[in-house]
């Protein structure tokens, strides 16, 4: 007869969602893992090796060394966000999200499973890009714990942001609008390619309102030991940003917005 619902039920349920997500990511690796490696290789070749030589120094170091943390973070952000939007919206669109909605799993476990899947892809891509970067700029590590924690927190935050996008999305166009018109400008202007001090007056103040700037700089501190912003402020902003997105995601899922009639 039917299984009794317990913590073990939830643990098995969480594992199942994660296994399913990881299997999907690895099965379609030419779509999930390969493209960011190729794109980032091009960034390193063009902006690092070719243009970077003429740029000279940025933030007191070689330009190619400066952009490596930002480009790893760019990959982590876009892959965490993109994985969950395509996977969860795909499940919604194909109606197989109903398999989860009629199961005993509570919203928190469903959310945890999907976010973990997105974090897996983001970190896998991050590591692969890091390996590619090492060929161009060598391997640098100033503080392992800051580097890893910032990588993880950023991946979680943007997975949650992608989840909210997927919840509200009605059609496939809806999951590409935010990444194209919001996420990409925020990332490019978030200190990936330059120090915030280069921005003129008001633009610098506006840039300081961009949470990605804090993530990129804290991660750069972890790798290279330099940052445009206070490390504590960066952690406060990333954790606050993630917590707000977590509460919003869970509330939407509990209410069944876009999922239950």
């Amino acid at each position, binding site marked *: *007869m*039917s*299984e*009794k*619902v*317990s913590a*073990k*039920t*939830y643990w*098995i*349920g969480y*594992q*199942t*969602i994660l*296994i*399913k997500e990881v299997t999907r990511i690895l099965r379609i690796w030419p779509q999930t893992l390969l493209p960011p490696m190729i794109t980032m290789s091009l960034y390193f070749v063009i902006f690092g090796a070719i243009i970077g030589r003429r740029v000279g120094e940025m933030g007191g170091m070689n330009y190619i060394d400066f952009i490596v943390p930002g480009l790893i973070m760019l990959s982590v952000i876009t892959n965490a966000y993109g994985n969950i939007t395509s996977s969860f919206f795909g*499940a919604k669109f*194909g*109606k*197989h999200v*109903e*398999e*989860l*909605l*009629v*199961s*005993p*799993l*509570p919203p928190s476990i469903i959310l945890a499973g999907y976010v973990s899947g997105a974090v897996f892809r983001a970190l896998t891509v991050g590591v692969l890009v890091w390996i590619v970067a090492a060929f161009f700029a060598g391997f640098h590590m100033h503080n392992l714990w800051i580097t890893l924690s910032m990588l993880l927190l950023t991946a979680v935050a943007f997975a949650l942001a992608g989840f909210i996008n997927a919840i509200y999305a009605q059609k496939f166009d809806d999951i590409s609008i935010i990444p194209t018109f919001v996420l990409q400008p925020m990332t490019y202007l978030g200190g990936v390619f330059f120090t915030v001090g280069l921005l003129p007056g008001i633009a610098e103040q506006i840039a300081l309102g961009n949470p990605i700037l804090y993530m990129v700089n804290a991660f750069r501190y972890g790798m290279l030991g330099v940052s445009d912003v206070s490390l504590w402020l960066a952690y406060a902003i990333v954790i606050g940003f993630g917590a707000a997105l977590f509460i919003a995601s869970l509330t939407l899922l509990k209410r*069944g917005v876009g999922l*239950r*009639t």
Partner: protein
Amino acid sequence: MNALEIRGLKKTYKSGAIALRGIDLEVAEGDFFALLGPNGAGKSTLIGIVSSLVNATSGEAKVFGTSVQEHRSQAMAEIGLVPQEVNFNQFEKPFDIIVNQGGYYGVPRNVAKERAEYYLKKLSLWDKAFRPSRTLSGGMKRRLLIARSMVHQPRLLILDEPTAGVDIEIRRSMWRFISEINEAGTTVILTTHYLEEAEQLCRNIAIIDNGQIVENTSVKRLLDKLQVETFVLDICEPIEQAPVVEGMDIHLRDPMTLEASIPKAQRLNGLFRALEVEGIEVKSMRNKANRLEELFVRLVGFDKEQVA
């Protein structure tokens, strides 16, 4: 204990459409229960609320005494749902679909794999277990939905038109499987458009129309309400006109087939005497199978064509 207990269930959609107008329903544990109704009557909304896919406007649904609204997780663990539309990931393999579904219900992976093999074999899908499910035929997809719904061995199985669009041979094999499940102790609730299906399989029945239960009784009692029984007679030689017998409605379906509607109080001997007088020889005779359909049409005041 009742497998399902529904009290004062109402549902009004945001558009203002009223789907359920206050449903009260009980389904006993172990029952094989049919839920019938024309399109748009509220059957799928009712199933949606019980399986937590639809939020009720008011009222309560309890599964084995557990409120779906208050203790969703516990209530859902008792239910297996076969939806009307195919809703699995068509890029996944049937085996994986069932194993993953087991995981969502807390079935350990090794146990889920054993059960997936058992149910896929039972439903003649084992040879397709490791092919992408999009390559399955319509009937196979429907059987996969049934196999998936059984992986956590629910105490209540809800089937929303499980045999729609399935050919008769596969439909009958699905009936056998569902009957076996019911005989093993699982309560089954079935919605169907094939009224013959409900008549053959189910013990109790509720007919829902316009968001309300218009009949809730046993199939036998419901059929007893039918005062007239219809027989189909295959005759040996073609005739041009049906014989006239007092108190019976006899008409020609085609030159070789007669259809006779006879009040239950009347004996069949009168019919045969009249046929004898007319020199009509009968090759075979059978009861017309759609007795329930006649009642259904009468109860919901609906044209037969719209139901089919």
